[in-house]
């Protein structure tokens, strides 16, 4: 009976229609984007001269580092602020007063940081000028907020219902000046700035990561332009950074730079020999209008437990120069660097790593025992912890770290 198969036609057609719709999306995205021709250096300059200081946007982050995904530790844990990056623990890093800053390698902190690195996240970012920022990390059924308004920085975690209020030093004038200085600084990065206060200073924003990545740009990197792309419906140039050395794990870095404003819209980091990005941070929506002023007003809801502290005038640590951000969590102890460029190895002396860290179950699952101690191997970077508690980290294979440790 021919009529029978006709009735199955919709069932056959629907998946085809959906497949077509799903495939049409990427096709549209990959269609050529017409932009004025520029050289890589011009794009770099465009990015350096980016004038965006008002935006609301959603940032999608995903990291596929080859780590086992950690059980959801619950967005409630206070230490998960670490996943907001140095920005969240801003006062801490800048002032060196908080417990987290004194011992950034507290097992719980590391665990949560790794938890962050292994799962996808959605972050909403609001900027209005230099002194007003809001970052919302959208967790499942919860949210972590950072609200910076002038000299006040609030953090709020809806899962624990805890808030901290940090009062920054000086009359509100100081920071905006610094911000403006940074924003218009063609050198892109002023290491003396409190990173937390720079626009988009959170590791989550493509801008911050892009700034980090091009900061150490030198002849060891081959700079080129990929095909123009579209990010968050905006035409963008795609800068490609390819390490010339083969000693690093990093194969390629791309930075999509908004053609209109120079704002970095998306950053991907691909491991050597891989096709898909290990780290992908990019705007999914972006609006360059000023967010409503109420966005930056924050009063902790009733019932919230609030911690208040005041940060004295900043004493800044120069940051270890490296192509990546990851190893920088342990900024407080004395840190040495060996090697150069992409293959740089960060070394922290014995005693840096508390002995309880390697014993923490979640961390222990990630670490593998190696002849020189315990190692954490990911697609993009490797960490080696010696039995004595010294720490070696870098975007290099484990063998390079072992070599460095042995050389000590």
């Amino acid at each position: 009976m021919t009529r029978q198969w006709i009735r199955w036609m919709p069932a056959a057609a629907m998946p085809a229609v959906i497949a077509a719709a799903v495939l049409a999306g990427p096709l549209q995205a990959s269609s050529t984007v017409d932009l004025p021709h520029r050289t890589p250096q011009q794009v770099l300059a465009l990015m350096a001269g980016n004038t965006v200081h008002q935006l609301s946007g959603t940032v999608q982050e995903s990291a596929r580092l080859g780590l086992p995904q950690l059980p959801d530790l619950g967005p409630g844990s206070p230490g998960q602020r670490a996943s907001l990056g140095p920005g969240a623990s801003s006062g801490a890093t800048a002032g060196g007063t908080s417990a987290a800053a004194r011992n950034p390698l507290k097992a719980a902190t590391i665990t949560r940081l790794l938890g962050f690195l292994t799962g996808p996240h959605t972050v909403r970012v609001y900027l209005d000028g230099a002194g007003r920022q809001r970052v919302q990390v959208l967790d499942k059924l919860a949210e972590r907020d950072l609200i910076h308004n002038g000299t006040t920085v609030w953090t709020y975690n809806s899962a624990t219902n805890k808030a901290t209020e940090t009062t920054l030093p000086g009359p509100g004038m100081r920071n905006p000046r610094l911000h403006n200085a940074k924003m218009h600084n063609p050198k892109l990065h002023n290491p003396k700035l409190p990173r937390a206060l720079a626009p988009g200073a959170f590791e989550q924003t493509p801008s911050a990561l892009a700034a980090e990545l091009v900061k150490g740009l030198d002849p060891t990197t081959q700079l080129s332009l990929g095909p123009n792309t579209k990010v968050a419906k905006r035409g963008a140039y795609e800068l490609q950074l390819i390490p010339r050395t083969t000693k690093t794990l990093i194969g390629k870095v791309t930075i999509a730079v908004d053609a209109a404003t120079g704002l970095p819209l998306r950053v991907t980091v691909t491991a050597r020999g891989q096709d898909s990005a290990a780290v992908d941070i990019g705007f999914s929506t972006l609006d360059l209008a000023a967010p409503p002023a109420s966005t930056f007003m924050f009063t902790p809801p009733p019932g919230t437990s609030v911690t208040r502290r005041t940060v004295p005038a900043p004493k800044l640590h120069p940051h270890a120069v490296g192509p990546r951000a990851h190893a920088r969590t342990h900024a407080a102890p004395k840190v040495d660097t060996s090697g150069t460029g992409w293959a740089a190895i960060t070394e922290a002396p014995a005693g840096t790593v508390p002995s309880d860290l390697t014993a923490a179950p979640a961390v222990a699952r990630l670490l593998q025992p190696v002849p020189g101690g315990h190692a954490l191997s990911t697609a993009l970077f490797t960490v080696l912890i010696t039995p004595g508690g010294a720490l070696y980290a870098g975007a290099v294979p484990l063998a390079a770290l072992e070599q460095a440790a042995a050389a000590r």
Partner: protein
Amino acid sequence: MSGESSPEGHGGGWNAPGEEPPAAAPYSAVAHGREGSAPGPVAGLPSGRPGALPDGRPAGAPTARARARTWPFLASELSVMFRRRRTWAMLAALAAVPVLIAVAVRVTGAGSGGEGPAFLDRITHNGLFVVLTALVLCTPLFLPLTVGVVSGDTLAGEAGLGTLRYLLAAPAGRARLLLVKYVGTAVFCAAATSAVLLAGTVAGLALFPSGPVPLLSGDLVDVWTAEGRIVLVGAYVFVSLLGLAAVGLFISTLTDVPVGAMAATVVLAIAAQVLDALPQLDWLHPWLFSHWWLGFADLLRQPVEWTSFGNNAVLQLGYVLVFGALAYGRFATKDVLS
């Protein structure tokens, strides 16, 4: 619910596409057939017969007859559903969830320290969190359970009772019956969500203080805005259930044993959530109908994050289309032997 007001009055609109190639033809053909044979048997009917009442045989009958009425059928479907004790038992069970939560929190005063389901620790500060806590509990488990029962029962239940053959001989039309069954299930989804919402709001406001409600972002909104957000969340949960309802409808076409279809649907709902929790299958996650179920929290942020609502709606629509088409393919070609 009068047939005259039905928008699908242009005959054949609800009928199986394959069944009646020219949409309007069959009904005029009915009229023809009747008129043609009128001098024969039909004219001889005594007027006292039930069917000889003003059933449209007199003048004007063909046009009246050419109208396919589906609203009365849908109304009948809903009345059958809501005249079942089982339906009310399930709605009562769903309504009991927020009430139990509210009472338990009230009696024990528990809910500090972030233990238990999300929002539980907020209830003592604001009664409206009862609804949200209940939805966190109901969305992954109780709501899919009841929707699985209702959607799995749609056709398998009729087949099990034997009424399916009489509906089809009526003739209900297979596509039309499928549509009415699906809409009926969707109405149940809405009723089930509303039961949780209403019971939660009432229990929360009765047992706990109300007042400005803190959103996930920490911003406070007044009670009416919060209630509006809760209604939005209800809409989100309702939409979330539509995909499962379509899956259940399809499973229901596969068997004449309603319990089997119900169980299979519920098991699928649970399996989808288990798969969603396995990181090794992250490529699959965006395709699972349960993937966005708990994304309703995005409506409680300030400002409202609509992305998950949109993603969820598109995903559920996809499930409805695919499984609706599968259910049609199966049901329209099926031999009804029950």
